[in-house]
């Protein structure tokens, strides 16, 4: 399968990338590792007329200690996250889930920023960032702005980024190396999650987020509320499907996904509590 024809532009700076986006408009897409975008283009589900390749902006590959948080460059690959000692010590949950994305080949190419900007509710890492209340930094023709993760994921493959903006950095809190559990349910090891559930402890409170339970990654607010009021993990997990709207597809019905959410949240909560 071959993508539909497109013009290829290689950006040698963030400004060059956003200038190209401004010039070509909504038909242009940024290409980072390509692990999400290229499969869609091969299936002709995405047909951008211009690809702006930002894959060589290696300045945006980093995990830095920025005082009260960690700053991660948008083009940092999953493999880099997986092997980062700083990330393992200061934000172990993100390192651990990065190691569960796709397979080795995908993790060698795929980037954190690409995964986030793609806005797929079935991706693992957006759910982690949502649970951590991460902050996203975007650069556009009018300068830089920050977007909170709760405002970032708007709909299926839709984010708060403007068509002429590029995600440049992801900021996560320092939450230490322990206190998390991620349950990913799929049919084959490398597949997207049919449903995923993350429990992670931040400042003594347990946060819960869900993968593939709606058009965006979701926080399981009802579960978090029950836990805050003292409910046991198994009781709190019963609320896992509340306010979710999962799709039915060839891998699972919506009803089954809701069942999985309750089971996986319970397992994640029990692992975190253990």
């Amino acid at each position, binding site marked *: 399968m071959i993508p539909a024809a497109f013009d290829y532009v290689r950006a040698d700076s963030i400004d060059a990338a956003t200038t190209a986006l401004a010039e070509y408009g909504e038909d242009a897409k940024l290409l980072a590792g390509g692990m999400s975008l290229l499969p869609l283009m091969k299936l002709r589900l995405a047909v951008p007329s211009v690809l702006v390749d930002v894959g060589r902006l290696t300045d945006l590959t980093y995990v830095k200690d920025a005082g009260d948080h960690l700053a991660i460059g948008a083009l940092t690959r999953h493999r880099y996250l997986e092997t980062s000692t700083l990330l393992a010590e200061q934000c172990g949950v993100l390192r651990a889930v990065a190691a569960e994305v796709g397979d080795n080949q995908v993790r*060698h190419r795929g980037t954190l920023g690409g995964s986030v900007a793609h806005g797929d509710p079935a991706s693992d890492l957006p759910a982690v960032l949502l649970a951590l209340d991460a902050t996203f930094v975007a650069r556009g023709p009018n300068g830089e702005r920050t977007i909170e993760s709760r405002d970032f994921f708007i709909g299926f493959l839709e984010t708060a980024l403007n068509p002429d903006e590029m995600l440049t950095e992801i900021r996560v809190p320092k939450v230490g190396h322990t206190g998390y559990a991620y349950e990913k349910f799929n049919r084959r090891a490398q597949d997207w999650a049919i449903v995923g559930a993350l429990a992670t402890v931040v400042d003594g409170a347990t946060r819960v987020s869900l993968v593939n339970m709606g058009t965006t990654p979701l926080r399981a607010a009802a579960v978090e509320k029950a836990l805050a009021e003292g409910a046991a993990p198994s009781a709190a997990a019963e609320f896992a499907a509340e306010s979710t709207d999962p799709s039915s597809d060839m891998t699972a019905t919506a009803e089954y996904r809701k069942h999985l959410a309750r089971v996986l949240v319970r397992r994640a909560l029990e692992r975190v509590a253990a």
Partner: protein
Amino acid sequence: MIPAVQISMVVNETTQFHEVEPRTLLVQFLRDVCGLTGTKVGCDTSSCGACTVLVDSESVKSCTMLAAQADGASITTIEGLGDAGWHPVQNAFHTEHGLQCGFCTAGMVMAAVSFLAENPDPTERDVRLGLEGNLCRCTGYHNIVKAVLKAAESMKATS
């Protein structure tokens, strides 16, 4: 008319300089332009790993990378693996009979070479996880895992 892009990369220690359509996939470039047909196209959807090659020493599915993205990179395919004769991973696949029909083999071997570079002393479970991106439709996984473990041993002994 979409303008072509000029790309240059080192494939198996030979510089390849060509003009291609931007949408040319790396696997098409390797097979159709460079004539290196050892790399297979299996699922063509980034699932099976048959098209795995090394890009700057890391395993990559060449059906899900544009040739233009590999401009300037160093590529190793199954044809370029051994220095003189077979690579230890190829030897181990031979002696452990780590193949049945052989279609997935080139991708398995390339994925295993990259995996062992990152994990020189793996357990059996590490190997199974490390090869999760490669499918064998003959289901011959058991001997493939044995072969990778044997290759790890022989590479340690000679390093």
